[in-house]
């Protein structure tokens, strides 16, 4: 080892010793805090671009995560709102149903001609019983038709299986509105429903937006599996009618009195 090399090692040992001395002294004095602050203040200037970049990146990531959490929250609230709307609609429907099916009068079917078997029936109640044209007729709590013609002692009921009776209806679970129409052969179809609306079997169908004599929320039936797509892209979905249309010996109607008449 030459002198130069020895000299280097002496410097190395001195540097290590100074480090150890500083390490030993520093925790016992407070002066190095002033030096630290001084150094940090000086370095603040060259570090400033990095600090700004870091804060900008943190702000951006914070903004991004806030945005994501807001979107998640909005989606959650939207789902909750939809559920509440459906629940509210169901409550309104039930209320209407209770109102409409309360104090129902019964009438016997006195004529069901084979030629218009799925289109029309005649019942033994008429004007004197408070029936008016357009009134709803029920069987087992489900809508089976509406009064089409009233005489003093009898009335004609146009059945929902008739191809000439078209009624606005709503799918209660999805709140999609379409039109129900019979085919004159015992089937009833819910028409004009757009594709991919998530309509499934056993969903409930009730009347919608018909008018004063035939209010919304009257139960009609449930969605069947069978469906077809019309050339214009809308769905026609077959409905299982709630009432047994093959055993219409009697029907129920609501007597319209006073102000409503």
């Amino acid at each position, binding site marked *: 080892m030459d002198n*130069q*090399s020895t*000299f*280097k*090692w002496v*410097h*190395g040992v001195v*540097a*290590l010793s*100074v*480090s*150890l*001395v*500083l*390490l*030993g002294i*520093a*925790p016992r004095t407070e002066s*190095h*805090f002033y*030096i*630290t602050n001084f*150094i*940090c203040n000086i*370095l603040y200037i*060259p*570090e400033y671009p*990095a*600090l700004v*970049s*870091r804060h900008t990146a943190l702000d951006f990531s914070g903004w991004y995560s806030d945005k994501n959490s807001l979107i998640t929250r909005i989606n959650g609230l939207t789902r909750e709102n939809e559920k509440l709307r459906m629940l509210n609609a169901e409550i309104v429907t039930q209320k209407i149903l209770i109102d409409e099916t309360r104090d129902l009068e019964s009438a016997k079917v006195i004529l069901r001609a084979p030629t218009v078997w799925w289109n029309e029936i005649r019942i033994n109640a008429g004007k004197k019983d408070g029936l008016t044209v357009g009134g709803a007729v029920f069987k087992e709590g489900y809508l089976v038709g509406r009064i089409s013609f009233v005489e003093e002692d009898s009335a004609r009921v146009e059945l929902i299986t008739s191809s000439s009776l078209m009624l606005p209806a709503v799918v209660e679970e999805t709140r999609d509105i379409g039109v129900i129409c019979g085919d004159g052969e015992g089937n009833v179809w819910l028409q004009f429903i757009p594709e991919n609306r998530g309509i499934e079997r056993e969903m409930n169908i009730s009347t919608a937006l018909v008018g004063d004599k035939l209010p919304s929320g009257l139960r009609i039936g449930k969605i069947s599996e069978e469906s077809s797509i019309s050339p214009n892209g809308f769905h026609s979905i077959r409905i299982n009618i709630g009432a047994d249309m093959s055993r219409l010996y009697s029907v129920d109607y609501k007597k319209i009195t006073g102000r409503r008449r």
Partner: protein
Amino acid sequence: MIFNSVLSWYIQDILAVLTFDALLVPDIFLLCILYNKFSDFSRDQGYEILLLWVLFLGGILWDLRWIEIPGIYAFVYTGTFLCATWIWSLFPESGHTAIIVYIILWISQLPGFFTGLFLWNVEAEHYLRSMLICQAYSIPLAAVFSLLYARKLKLKNA
């Protein structure tokens, strides 16, 4: 040399500011000083002593900026430098290859890393993750500096 050292210290500091984690910042400053030592083919001892004190001052500055206790990294850097130069001196001049430079530079990152683990009280379950991160930067950095050395050696021999 002074400019390179200051620049490497500044880059190391900026990385620490950006990540706010001085533990996981590579010791670029130490690597740069060691590279300067290895690539000095004149074997000037005065230059080596100058590098030693520059490294010591850089270590003190790093301690004051990030540790608040002066002496820790000054000791680690100086000790690592002395060990590295001693190992380097064990090889004959023909053995001063880029591979040896790479190995020494790679291993020289470990003392600083373990000191950081000790100072920051890193929990045992994070050792492996920290080690992997350390290797992720120390291996390529050592490779870069050894490639620079290889280039300089080639120019010298040309």
